[in-house]
């Protein structure tokens, strides 16, 4: 990996995050005038985490204040909102965004102080209660319609990213509550229950991997086996790394190592490099099937955390290499795959008019002339993930103390 370029991309990522925060505190998913000029609870929370990692404490705080104030009366965090914090959601429930807001808030409190949690404690209670209202008491997992891919066909049910995010959010709420002297014993028990069920029901010991989803149509179906959707989704999906991403398990846990091994083998793009989010055959490949920098960065952190510097470098180095003018796209593809997507959607009669803007953006991107389809550049989320991955990499493999520690460890081992 070109370390100088890696550092430049890190610096650029910080600037991109700063430049894409509205004065009201919301982080755009992509800049005004591009495809996603709104604030999405999921993207926004991860950008807060990236900002925190980069030391942008004021920006992170303003981001948290913004999103907490945008909470709906039901306790739900909006799927997306405008710069005023007014709900402009257009998709059905995406409960992971609720867990993510709590998770980001908890991380902020641990790094800075608990004042903001005290100030917004009512909101914290409302989000927790909202999550718990969506927990099924037969298998003690949280039900959602959409999750990280906004793709109900594979995510409607008890999905792994949504459950890991919500569980981690509850754990953070418990930590905040304890720090503020609140009675959060019940939340603690609930979080433990959900965690236990993620680690058993969403794990397949025969295949030694986490699975994507227990597909269930109605949260209240009882018994669940009679629900019309009742089935499991076991295809490899980058989201199956979620239990470690949200610190429910250590990266060195064998269940995580094997899950990532499977993701790496199945989803690393043999033609373009980088990590695809799910199998091509799921066939929702807007802009053409291809690798996503933010999933690549997430899994790069796993390799860092287990000390696999070779694989970490391949992953992170790929992100550095594909950055265009130090900006990262949502994902990239080839012209051939892009054309295939257009053909298949047009023939099926499902090509939408609003995709025209995206298509124009892809074709006018300088990389098109080089044979690549760059879809939505810059997307802010991958910059936040890059900051987090680069910092981990730097601390583990480039930093003073960590490097010395590793050397000492190596000497002792010898």
């Amino acid at each position, binding site marked *: 990996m070109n370390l100088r370029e890696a550092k430049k991309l890190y610096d650029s990522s910080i600037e991109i995050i700063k430049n894409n925060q509205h004065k009201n505190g919301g982080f755009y998913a992509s800049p005004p005038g591009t495809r996603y000029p709104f604030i999405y609870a999921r993207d926004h929370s991860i950008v807060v985490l990236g900002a925190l990692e980069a030391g942008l404490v004021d920006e992170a705080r303003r981001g948290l204040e913004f999103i907490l104030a945008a909470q*709906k*009366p*039901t306790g739900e965090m*909006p799927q997306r909102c*405008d710069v*005023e914090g*007014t*709900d*402009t*959601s*257009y998709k059905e429930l995406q409960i992971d965004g609720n867990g993510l807001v709590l998770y980001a808030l908890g991380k902020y409190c641990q790094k800075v102080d608990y004042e903001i949690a005290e100030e917004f404690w009512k909101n914290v209670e409302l989000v927790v209660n909202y999550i718990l209202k969506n927990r099924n008491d037969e298998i003690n997992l949280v039900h959602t319609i959409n999750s990280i891919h906004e793709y109900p066909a594979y995510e409607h049910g008890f999905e792994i990213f949504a459950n890991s995010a919500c569980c981690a959010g509850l754990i953070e709420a418990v930590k905040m509550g304890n720090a503020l002297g609140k009675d959060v014993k019940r939340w603690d028990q609930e979080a433990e229950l959900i965690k236990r069920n993620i680690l058993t029901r969403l794990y397949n010991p025969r295949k030694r991997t986490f699975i994507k989803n227990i597909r269930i149509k109605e949260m209240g179906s009882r018994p669940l086996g009679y629900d019309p959707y009742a089935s499991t989704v076991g295809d490899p999906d980058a989201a199956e790394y979620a239990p470690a991403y949200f610190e429910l398990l250590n990266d060195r846990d064998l269940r995580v190592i094997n899950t990532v091994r499977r993701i790496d083998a199945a989803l690393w793009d043999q033609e373009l490099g980088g990590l695809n989010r799910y199998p091509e055959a799921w066939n929702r490949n807007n802009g053409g099937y291809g690798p996503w920098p933010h999933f690549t960065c997430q899994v790069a952190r796993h390799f860092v955390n287990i000390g696999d510097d070779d694989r970490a470098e391949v992953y992170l180095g790929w992100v550095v290499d594909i950055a265009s003018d130090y900006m990262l796209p949502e994902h990239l593809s080839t012209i051939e795959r892009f054309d295939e997507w257009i053909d298949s959607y047009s023939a099926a009669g499902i090509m*939408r*008019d*609003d995709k025209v803007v995206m298509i124009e953006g892809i074709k006018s991107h300088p990389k098109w002339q080089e044979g690549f389809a760059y879809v939505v550049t810059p997307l802010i989320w991958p910059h936040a993930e890059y900051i987090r991955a680069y910092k981990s990499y730097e601390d583990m493999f480039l930093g003073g103390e960590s490097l010395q520690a590793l050397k000492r460890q190596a000497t002792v081992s010898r």
Partner: protein
Amino acid sequence: MVDVRKIVSEAFLMAIIEGVRKDGPEKTFEWIEHVADNLGEKEGPGLEGDPKGSLNCLHICPFANALQEFLIKYGETPPEFMALLDSADRDDTFAASNVFCIFHHTIRTKRAELAGRKVYHLASSANAERKTAYNEKAIEAANMTKADIDELMEKTVCVFKYE
């Protein structure tokens, strides 16, 4: 086997028919508005639709399937729905192309109000015939013409404007 979600929306539509028969369209209209207002309040401040210049649009009507299934089951559009739509016509608030528009636009209005905004329903065409209902006063207030709206309606089913 009973599909609860379907039967609940059917029950709502049947209640509308019964309401018009029993209490007349005006009272039923008020009842729908009252229900929608409460639901809008519960949902909280919010804006709908895909921004298109100064207007917002819906590409699909979220209620269209429920209505279509009802009509498949019960036959042609009940006269009670038509009576209700006539009531809506007398009010400059709606561009109601089906009976759900009254319900939906009232929720939209309440949520806009909670967000400190006003919303005008300009046109919709969410009915089996794809026949557009216009709110001419609202179109005029938005400085638009019917031709402008028709152009938009080629690719959308509902147009409204926030102020």
